[in-house]
């Protein structure tokens, strides 16, 4: 026993942190003649090492080394446990269609994105092929709809427990659902399918796979991104290049310049810097359009159009107001359902500009159509009435043919009269809606220049000389244009030329003519919506 005890003093067992390996050290002073594999195994047993963990071959070799190299410390791993196999993270596999789109996008991003610069080593045929590709329609984004299947996810793998060198269990770690999948926007179903919870842009790389409800375009919308059709809001960090298009159901915000491009949104469009449309740029919004400035572009706003600095040579239609409170408007045409507020209107060079307030195209156009139809029907009815009168005056009342002819004419006149009644009813419904939603008013803060023509529904106003603001030009209760300066109203004709103009006198149908000089008050205002009947009648 003392000798064994002595030998123990020269042996040392060390383990790794996980207790999966045991290394036996034999000191230099150990009596080498006494070291045998058996002695070493007994020592390890005394330390609690499990029999099945012992590496007999290693023990044998270590004992032989100790005997052969007396006076030197030797060591070897002599016990091995079994490390656990941890549960594997679940793996996401996109659908073939999404994989194909990812490949396309990645291939494109690795190419030169400007199609006008074909690679220098491309053959003429390859150049022609490159030209034939629709680079505008190639989107750099994968857009999905809520409920779309995105792929599948591998079933969970629980792993397998390990065993340390003392026989203890080393539990396998369980792997939760992958942390790189955003559960807010991606649904993992029980049958291991992966579906989009909402519509948006599929984020398929980076630390989190998700369906982003807002599309963030860090740079420009151009050849690198292609056109954008997105079922939600779009934020563009750069600008929108020539001929590219954004079509979104949510707000569209562009930080920099919109060139001769097209933006369409069911909600607001905000262009922080400005729009330089070069006569082809277009912006359509279901609600407001806001911009720093707008130049040579067409804007169609469902509600207001608000511009900070200036509008130059643009065609603007806003169902609500057009507000450029401190800025200037030069050239072009503007139509607003409600008021127009502007700092400076026109220019010293007398650039022609046309301003129409109190007009809503969706109501005015059918009304104009009704007016045309009404006039045609009226003419037709007069013609038939004249024919009928002539026939009756010369009619042989015993002639059945003549009787039938008069009856047919009577019948046609009655049909036309019914149609005219329906047209009048439809027109009246539209007028009621126009009165409810339209408000003709132009406010100028600083100055109006000659060359500007302001159209109201029944007249046109133009200034022959510069006229300083602030003032508001509007129609009084009699339909006369008046200028309101600091609460004092006076007829506009005192400072401007007021001309009757029925171009836009849609309200003045054949039965309700209303001129600038009319003494009759305007029809009383009413409320109510124009029903589809009005449109149908038109």
């Amino acid at each position: 026993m003392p000798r064994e005890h002595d030998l123990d003093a020269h042996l040392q067992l060390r383990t790794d942190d996980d207790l999966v390996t045991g290394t036996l050290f034999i000191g230099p002073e150990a009596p080498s003649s006494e070291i045998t594999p058996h002695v070493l195994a007994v020592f390890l047993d005394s330390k609690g090492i499990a029999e099945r963990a012992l590496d007999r071959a290693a023990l044998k070799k270590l004992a032989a080394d100790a005997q052969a190299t007396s006076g030197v410390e030797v060591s070897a791993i002599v016990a091995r446990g079994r490390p656990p196999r941890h549960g594997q993270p679940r793996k996401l596999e996109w659908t073939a269609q999404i994989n194909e789109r990812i490949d396309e996008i990645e291939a494109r991003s690795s190419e030169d994105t400007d199609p006008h610069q074909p690679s220098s080593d491309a053959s003429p045929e390859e150049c022609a092929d490159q030209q034939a590709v629709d680079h505008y329609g190639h989107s750099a984004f994968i857009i999905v709809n809520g409920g779309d299947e995105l792929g599948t996810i591998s079933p969970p793998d629980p792993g397998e427990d390990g065993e340390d060198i003392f026989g203890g269990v080393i539990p396998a770690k369980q792997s939760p659902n992958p942390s790189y999948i955003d559960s807010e926007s991606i649904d993992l179903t029980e049958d291991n399918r992966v579906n989009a919870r909402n519509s948006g842009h599929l984020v398929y790389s980076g630390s989190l796979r998700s369906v982003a409800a807002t599309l963030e375009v860090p740079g420009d919308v151009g050849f690198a991104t292609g056109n954008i059709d997105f079922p939600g809001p779009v934020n563009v960090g750069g600008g929108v290049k020539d001929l590219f298009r954004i079509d979104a159901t949510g707000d569209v915000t562009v930080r920099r310049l919109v060139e001769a491009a097209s933006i369409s949104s069911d909600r607001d469009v905000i262009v922080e810097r400005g729009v330089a449309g070069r006569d082809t740029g277009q912006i359509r919004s279901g609600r407001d359009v806001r911009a720093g400035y707008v130049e040579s572009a067409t804007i169609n706003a469902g509600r207001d159009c608000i511009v900070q600095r200036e509008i130059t040579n643009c065609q603007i239609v806003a169902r609500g107001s057009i507000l450029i409170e401190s800025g200037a408007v030069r050239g072009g045409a503007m139509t607003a359902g409600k008021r127009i507020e502007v700092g400076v209107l026109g220019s010293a060079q007398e650039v022609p500009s046309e301003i129409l307030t109190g007009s809503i195209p969706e109501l005015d156009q059918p009304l104009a159509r009704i007016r045309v139809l009404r006039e045609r029907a009226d003419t037709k009815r007069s013609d038939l009435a004249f024919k009928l009168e002539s026939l009756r005056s010369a009619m042989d009342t015993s002639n059945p043919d003549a009787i039938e002819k008069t009856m047919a004419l009577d019948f046609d006149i009655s049909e036309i009269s019914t149609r005219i009644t329906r047209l009048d009813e439809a027109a009246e419904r539209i007028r009621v809606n126009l009165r409810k939603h339209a408000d003709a008013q132009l406010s100028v803060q600083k100055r109006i220049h000659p060359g500007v023509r302001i159209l109201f529904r029944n007249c046109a106003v133009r200034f022959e000389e510069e006229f300083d603001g602030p003032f508001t030009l509007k129609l009084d209760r009699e339909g006369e244009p008046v200028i309101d300066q600091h609460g004092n109203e006076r007829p506009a004709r005192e400072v401007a030329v007021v001309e009757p103009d029925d171009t836009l006198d849609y309200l003045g149908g054949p039965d309700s003519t209303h001129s600038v000089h009319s003494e009759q008050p305007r029809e009383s205002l009413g409320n109510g919506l124009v029903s589809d009947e009005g449109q149908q009648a038109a």
Partner: protein
Amino acid sequence: MRIMLIDDSKTMRNIQKSVLKQLGYTEIEEACDGQDALSKVAAFNPDLCLVDWNMPVMDGLTFVKTFRQKDKSTPLIMVTTEAEKSRVIEAIKAGVNNYVVKPFTPDLLSERITETLAKVSA
């Protein structure tokens, strides 16, 4: 209610049809003379007939006489002109229930139809 219009003039049929539609009658069959009407009545089984007097092939009076040999109850309205008015008695004897003189207004026609149907159902 099924109504048959028997008139050689398409214009007259159209006028009558328009009045009937305004009154809410949409099941309408047309015939261009008495013979054409006789060939259609079995299939259409009208509840009322508007019969013009003057027609080629078979006039209204002949149609009424032939029709009444088999059908005593379906109401018939004769459409006449001022010239035929004196012969209305003959038509009534043949079996017409009412008559309307051309030129008539839509209101008058609808009045005659309503009146005839009311009489028959009374």
